[in-house]
């Protein structure tokens, strides 16, 4: 029998640290939930009961301990940090996505400048405060960007482009660090 080796999406690529900004991979269970027609409220109830999290509004994330729920598109949220309870499948289409996405966390003061080079969306406090999330374009890749803390950002892209994401983040990090160095010289 073929012996397969389980590898995370960014295995061997992360963590990376440049000029005080650290990029690391997040490995945790991930499931997409799409409420059946007219079942939004029922899904909200089931989520709260099974995982303690509230169903997030568009562009928002909700959290309860280790478990979080990210808005992920029209009629679409992602449950993170816990395997979805069986009760959710009664009111929503539930799909395990744990191995389908590459999730990275970027921490550091310059993280926003690094991301600003890769995405067209407004990253300022007024447009993307802590707890806000956006599905957007990340250097031509379809992804999700979430502000989880003042200087903490989460980036998600398809697993198949994990290496490209790490490359783009690293290149942008080095550029931003280089500009800072030039200015201080």
């Amino acid at each position, binding site marked *: 029998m073929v012996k397969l080796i389980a590898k995370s999406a960014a295995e061997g690529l992360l963590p990376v640290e440049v000029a005080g900004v650290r990029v690391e991979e997040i490995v945790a269970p991930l499931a997409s939930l799409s409420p059946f027609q007219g079942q939004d409220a029922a899904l909200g109830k089931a989520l709260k009961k099974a995982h303690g999290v509230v169903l997030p509004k*568009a*562009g928002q994330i909700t959290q309860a301990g280790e478990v979080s729920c990210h808005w992920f598109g029209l009629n679409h949220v992602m449950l993170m940090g816990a395997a979805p309870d069986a009760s959710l499948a009664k009111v929503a289409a539930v799909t395990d996505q744990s191995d389908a996405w590459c999730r990275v966390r970027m921490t550091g003061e310059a993280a926003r400048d690094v991301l600003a080079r890769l995405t067209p969306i407004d990253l300022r406090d007024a447009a993307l405060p802590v707890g806000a999330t956006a599905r*957007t374009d990340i250097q031509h890749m379809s992804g999700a960007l979430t502000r989880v803390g003042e200087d903490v950002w989460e980036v998600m892209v398809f697993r198949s482009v994990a290496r490209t994401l790490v490359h783009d983040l690293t290149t942008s990090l080095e550029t931003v660090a280089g500009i800072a160095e030039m200015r201080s010289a």
Partner: protein
Amino acid sequence: MKISCPICGDRDIREFTCMGHASMLNRPDPHAGAKVWNEYLHNRENPAGVIDELWWHGQGCGAWLVVTRNTVTHEILGARLARDVKKEMRDAG
């Protein structure tokens, strides 16, 4: 150029794909006959001015929109969820 997605707010044009004239929502009955289907599939108004088009926010929330824009001034005049527009069409009969 920006399109104001009803779900996501103002977003850059590169997140959207134009999917053709909004008349595509007005799909005829399967048995409407060749003439009607030919009209639906192939004939379009091509106005110099205000036009309704389907745009897909594929690099964002995934919603299909009906975007009203001016082909002369390139002004985006509004965007609504295509499903809401379709529902109104259905309700109006």
